[in-house]
């Protein structure tokens, strides 16, 4: 009963749970927002197909209406040249109960002033129109750890510019991810923890010197920088956490032309990348590392260490896309990619302490100095060719061929110097060459038949095949320097779309495979995949979506004996009486089951065992919005809901995010808003990673 009450309470959430508080009124005025809400009422894929009636109904109803003049009909409604919303506010976060690092790894919101949302559209009408017809500027969650921006500018028939930026904090410091018995060291975080920022910056400028010829250029940058903890592994016998300074980035420049003709389109693009990855690691004091037992009678330790990793890379790439309609019954599509990235690396490492030699050397050393030079390149060619052929009015045949081929060549030279306390130097030099090859292809034929306006069925066949060669694992090096892998799968395809009425749409998609070979033990082999979706418009302004996703994969090979089953059922219900004028409700519930069994080797004692993974999850969210009594455009709104996730199985977890929102318009152009949200995570097997926290965000929204 308690569970049910909790379910009901928390069962109030979705759309808004994923939206910013500004969501419901981001339009120019409340009326517009309401209009949009009506239009969005069934935000499902049936929306378009189910809304056929209004236009025709209007025709019938107003057939006798006087015909409006062209000016009346076609003249755009008088538009504001400048419109949008600006939300500013402040967030307060309660002291976090439980593990702050886990809170930061998952939620990471902090107190302070925020530019929650800025969404401005400017359509110049004066002299500025010479520069642009339209300017769109969006800023979201500035001040929060996850923020983004967008700038679009456009001048009809002259240019179009699209720029975007995102900044995502990658904080990950979970004790369960490190060695749980690790003695506390001077390191700031746990092993394999990071406190970094990932930034993405993307720009594209398209020019329109003519209708059929469109050159474009683009620049993209992806970076990560910050600190972390990474381990230094000494001769495979012990490992010591070191502070890690991370800084990497990739710049991508690309440009090309689009050729737009009546029956033919082609895009040719050339680009280049430059890449750098710098890591600096250093110890923060003596450490005994992770090893708790002596090695050959001695206690291993590290007094001081540093490591510098410099990786530089560049590459070029070529792309080509084309579509061609040679006849009214045929469409052809093609794409081709070629890339050739290269990297070179330089690693210097110094370690001092009681360091074991690399087996079979059983000596111990006071200092180790390593230098590694490496280089690698990987030419890759991929492409696809597909066509749709309509030999008959109701039948479409689709043929698709995909290919992907690449290989990677690498060389590394290692120079190691071991200094014993006695002054004896033991040099160790080696050179290694590696190669990794992959050829992977697939061919698919499918026929789609429109049996009627309401029923489409399809069936087809896909054949996938490939070969791979890679360097063997350490223990396999004894028998061969390389391993080879094969891929061979025969897949049957089927599907149906049934739309018996405007208010019901059913989709189903079925795949079944008879695999012969697969590259990896956990790969798809003999699988059955089923997806089904029903979209139903019910009376009383109710919209219901039901979906089922099922995957069953088996690898009967005696060395794998793998079975994997995933079963996910979802239901979503929306209630929007009277176009959501007074109340709206969106609720959804998903139940998922994952079960994986695969045999694997247990080395101590040497035996086989099953790796069993189970995850049974119940997920729900609900959002209820009520419009309170008001006057004119000054109509307050209150909404509440949230989401819950409860899972049972290999890592049972409970994650709750209830929320409530209040919007109070002061004037048609100034609104006050407040939002409360609660975060709670419980994991019975990892109690030390649970947390609870409130956040309250309040602010002012300005509408233009």
């Amino acid at each position, binding site marked *: 009963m308690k569970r049910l009450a909790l379910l009901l309470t928390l069962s109030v959430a979705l759309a808004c749970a994923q939206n910013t508080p500004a969501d419901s009124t981001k339009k120019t005025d409340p009326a517009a927002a309401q209009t949009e809400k009506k239009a969005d009422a069934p935000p499902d894929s049936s929306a378009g197909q189910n809304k056929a009636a209004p236009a025709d109904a209007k025709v019938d109803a107003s057939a006798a209406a006087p015909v409006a003049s062209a000016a009346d*009909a076609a003249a755009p409604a008088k538009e504001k040249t400048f419109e949008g919303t600006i939300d500013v506010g402040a967030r307060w976060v309660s002291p976090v109960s439980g593990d702050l690092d886990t809170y930061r790894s998952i939620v990471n919101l902090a107190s302070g002033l925020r530019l929650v949302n800025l969404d401005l559209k400017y359509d110049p009408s004066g002299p500025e129109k010479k520069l642009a017809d339209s300017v769109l500027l969006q800023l979201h*969650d500035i001040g929060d750890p996850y923020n983004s921006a967008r700038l679009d500018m456009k001048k009809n028939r002259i240019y179009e510019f699209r720029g975007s930026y995102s900044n995502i904090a990658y904080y990950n410091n979970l004790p369960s991810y490190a060695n749980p018995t690790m003695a506390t060291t001077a390191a700031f975080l746990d092993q394999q923890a990071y406190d970094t920022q990932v930034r993405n910056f993307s720009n594209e400028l398209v020019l329109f010197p003519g209708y059929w010829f469109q050159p474009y250029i683009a620049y993209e940058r992806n970076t990560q920088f910050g600190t972390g903890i990474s381990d230094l592994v000494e001769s495979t016998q012990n490992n010591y956490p070191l502070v890690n300074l991370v800084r990497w980035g990739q710049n991508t420049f690309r440009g090309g032309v689009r050729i737009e003709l009546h029956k033919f389109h082609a895009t040719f693009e050339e680009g280049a990348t430059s890449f750098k990855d710098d890591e600096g690691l250093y110890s923060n004091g003596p450490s005994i590392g992770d090893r708790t037992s002596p090695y050959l009678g001695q206690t291993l330790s590290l007094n001081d260490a540093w490591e510098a990793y410099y990786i530089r890379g560049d590459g070029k790439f070529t792309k080509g896309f084309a579509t061609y309609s040679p006849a009214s019954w045929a469409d052809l599509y093609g794409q081709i990619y070629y890339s050739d990235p290269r990297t070179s690396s330089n690693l210097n490492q110094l370690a001092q302490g009681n360091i074991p030699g690399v087996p079979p050397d059983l000596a111990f050393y006071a200092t180790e100095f390593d230098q590694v030079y490496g280089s*690698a390149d990987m030419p890759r060619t991929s492409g696809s060719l597909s066509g749709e052929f309509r030999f008959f009015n109701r039948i479409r045949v689709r043929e*698709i061929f995909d290919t992907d081929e690449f290989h990677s060549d690498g060389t590394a030279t290692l120079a190691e110097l071991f200094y014993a306390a006695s002054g004896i130097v033991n040099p160790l030099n080696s050179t290694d060459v590696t190669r990794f090859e992959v050829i992977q292809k697939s061919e698919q034929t499918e026929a789609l038949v429109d049996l009627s306006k309401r029923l489409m069925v399809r069936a087809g066949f896909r054949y996938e095949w490939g070969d791979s060669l890679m360097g063997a694992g350490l223990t396999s090096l004894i028998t061969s320097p390389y391993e080879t892998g094969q891929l061979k799968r025969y897949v049957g395809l089927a599907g149906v779309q049934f739309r018996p009425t405007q208010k019901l749409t059913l989709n189903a998609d079925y795949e079944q495979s008879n695999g012969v070979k697969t590259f990896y033990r956990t790969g798809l082999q003999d699988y059955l995949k089923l997806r089904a979706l029903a979209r139903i418009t019910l009376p009383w302004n109710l919209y219901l979506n039901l979906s089922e996703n099922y995957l069953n994969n088996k690898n009967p090979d005696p060395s794998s004996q793998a079975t994997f089953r995933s079963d996910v059922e979802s*239901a979503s219900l929306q209630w929007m009486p009277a176009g959501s004028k007074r109340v709206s409700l969106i609720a959804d519930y998903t139940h998922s089951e994952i079960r994986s069994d695969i045999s694997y080797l247990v080395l101590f004692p040497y035996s086989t065992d099953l790796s069993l993974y189970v995850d049974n999850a119940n997920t729900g969210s609900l959002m209820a919005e009520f419009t309170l009594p008001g006057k004119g455009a000054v109509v307050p709104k209150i909404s509440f809901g949230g989401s819950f996730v409860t899972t049972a199985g290999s890592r049972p977890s409970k994650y709750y995010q209830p929320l409530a929102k209040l919007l109070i318009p002061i004037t048609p152009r100034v609104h006050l808003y407040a939002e409360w949200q609660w975060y709670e995570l419980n994991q019975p097997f990892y109690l030390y990673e649970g947390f609870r926290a409130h956040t309250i965000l309040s602010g002012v929204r300005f509408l233009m």
Partner: protein
Amino acid sequence: MSRFRSGWIPPIVAACVIVATGPARGQTAAGAEAARKAAAAPSGYAGAEACAGCHEDISQAFARNPHFSLDKNKRWAGKACEACHGPGAKHADSTSADDIVNPLRLTASKADAICLSCHRNQPTQVGRLESGHARSAIACTSCHDMHKPGAESSFARLKRNDRITQLCSGCHRDIAAAFLKPHHHKVPEGAMTCTSCHNPHGSFMSRNLRMASTGAEPGCLNCHSDKRGPFVYDHAPVRNEPCTTCHEPHGSVNPRMLTRQEVYIVCLECHSNLGVPASNSGTLGSTPPAFHNMAVPRYRNCTTCHVKVHGSNADRGLLR
């Protein structure tokens, strides 16, 4: 592997240009077919003025929709509505819904054909035959609208991350639910959206996965370009299997969106062949890489030592 070089690309380019400049004949789409027939008989058109007479609200909204730019096109000036709905003179006379093309009442394939008569020629559409949406007859109009004005148009709405997520979630409820799990990509937070990783129009990668801007690599590398390499020592599945071999990209209860509750289980499910020599089993990477005693806690999180698990430039064992 020198056959992978791109020397054959220029001839293909040349061939494409030759084909492009070949004789052009009519459009392919059913709707466009109707439009073409009507073009041959100009009297079949009623003109936007006539449409607005009855459909005043739609007409006014349409005038603020990006598709209204058709009105500036020589061919469709004054009859932009009929670019999609076909000649409307007969319908204007009879006012019968049967006398006009209504894409919403056509089969998805025929409705799409109308849109594609203009939009096929866009790079995003190149992989559309491989798209799950196209295969399942999800029409363009399921996500895009043609009549809504200004900021209400799908053109404007789909520039916002949260609106895109909301739209996709309408059908893909199971995926939206996965994002509610504690470890997830920052989609609910609005920093990314579904189309950051997927191209809903199609891709030759499975699950409509967007390709990296640098080539035929998974779009994951657009943000995680440090995993792109190449590395002297590749971790093979990073290259020729989806990232989903080890990660649940939408959301997971496991840290780092792993597919299993502990790191070592993710690793050992592959690195644990049973009695078959790796060199001839046809399955890659399955032999145990080392003889660690998993009962000892320090070995249970493989990546505390194998820190370069996505690929290393210095160590075959991915230790640095």
